């Protein structure tokens, strides 16, 4: 099989695959929206606001999934030094932050009617918030270190350390939340989900995953091209710098 890790091969692969994936994503999204608004029943106690769930839950799932993808890429950077892994890492961070933010935003939009407040420091909500902050920190690291290779290695280590830490954080946040008297009578995860809700939910989850894959591929491609451009300019500059030297060089 072709070595997909080779950026050039990857680029050609993307060129061929991307249109199909994009089309599939759009299709699934349309189906999902149709199911949500015409098939799925309104919840008897939550009313129409339950429809937020179809955006909220997939976002929540993806926020974790993307971190896993990013950690895998981080391993690629450190162990195999693949430039492709670098790009995959860098491209994943903002996407992860975006999906996590959607989860937070929809969640609190949902929380307003449900709890009468935008936010409660519920265990699960809070750990999602921490995940969001970790994404932001990694983005800050990426843009703080100028030289791409070095940034990739630093980010990779912080990503993996974060991966090790996330379970500990989840555990301690739960502990913290149960320690104090429950913040609110409502808990996240409302009524048991009916089958008629489950189908659109799963469709939306799949659509969201594909959406991520599409955006990720695009971002990786752009990152690879950006790096190539940088490298080529520097290279060209030096080739042009050399003759100027050779001309004036004293004969040895």
């Amino acid at each position, binding site marked *: 099989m072709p070595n997909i890790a080779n950026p050039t091969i990857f680029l050609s692969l993307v060129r061929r695959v991307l249109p199909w994936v994009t089309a599939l994503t759009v299709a699934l999204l349309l189906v999902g929206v149709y199911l949500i608004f015409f098939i799925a029943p309104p919840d008897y106690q939550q009313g129409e606001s339950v429809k937020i769930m179809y955006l909220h839950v997939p976002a929540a799932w993806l926020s974790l999934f993307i971190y896993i993808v990013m950690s895998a890429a981080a391993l690629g950077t450190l162990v195999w030094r693949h430039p492709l892994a670098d790009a995959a890492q860098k491209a994943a961070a903002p996407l992860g932050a975006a999906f996590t933010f959607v989860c937070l935003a929809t969640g*609190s939009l949902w929380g307003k009617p449900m709890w009468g*407040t935008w936010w409660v*420091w519920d265990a699960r909500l809070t750990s999602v918030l*921490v995940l969001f*902050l970790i994404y932001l920190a990694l983005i*800050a690291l990426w843009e*703080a270190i100028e030289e791409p290779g070095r940034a990739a290695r630093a980010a990779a280590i912080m990503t993996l350390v974060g991966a090790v830490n996330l379970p500990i954080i989840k555990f301690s946040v739960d502990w913290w939340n149960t320690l*104090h008297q429950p*913040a*609110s009578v409502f808990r996240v995860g409302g009524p048991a989900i009916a089958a008629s809700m489950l189908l659109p939910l799963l469709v939306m989850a799949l659509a969201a995953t594909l959406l991520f894959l599409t955006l990720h591929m695009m971002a990786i491609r752009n990152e690879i091209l950006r790096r190539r451009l940088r490298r080529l300019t520097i290279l060209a500059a030096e080739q042009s710098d050399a003759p100027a030297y050779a001309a004036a060089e004293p004969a040895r």
Partner: protein
Amino acid sequence: MGGALAAQFRRELKIARRSGGGASTGAVFFLVLAAIFPFAVGPDLNLLARIGPAILWIAVLLSTLLGLDRLFQADYEDGSLDVMLTGEMPLELIVLVKCAAHWLTTALPLVFVAPLFGLALAQDGAALVRVTLSLLVGTPALTLIGAIGAAATVSLRRGGLLIAVLVLPLTIPVLIFGVSAAGAGLADPVRFAAPFAILCALSLAALAGAPFAVAAALRYGGE
């Protein structure tokens, strides 16, 4: 003259925007810091609602001051400061421009992020508006006073913490009036007007005085 100042201003913004500028770090630090507090004080919404303005203001205070360490140090280390001193532009003006650019790139974003996070701290609409306004007029004082500390420690390679130590005590007035202007609970606008006015006064005073202190500190530091 004007051209030189404009060039200086553009340069600062460019440096902040470029990869390596890390202008956003301050905003993220603010978010992380504000998010840390509930883990310490517990998830009690009433309590959080009560100390919310304090949390927001302290978070802004720290992320503003701690972000100042490179304000002059970078120019000092790479020799830019020496060359600027050989220019005809009065150092005071250069300082003013640098502070303005720094406020624009680091402090102003906080003013917009703070209310968002205020929601998580159970602040109601009125309180959010107050926090935002108080931060808007208060942060310039923080940046300018902080700049004095940054200039005094310009030749030391261990900036951030030391600047905060020097400057935090001086910023206590800003903090007090800022929090009491932002302080939710006091419904009537009068209680807001007074501290708010004082806050503006503090910022204007800093604007008038700080540049000279900064310039003096930089000149001595350069020797």
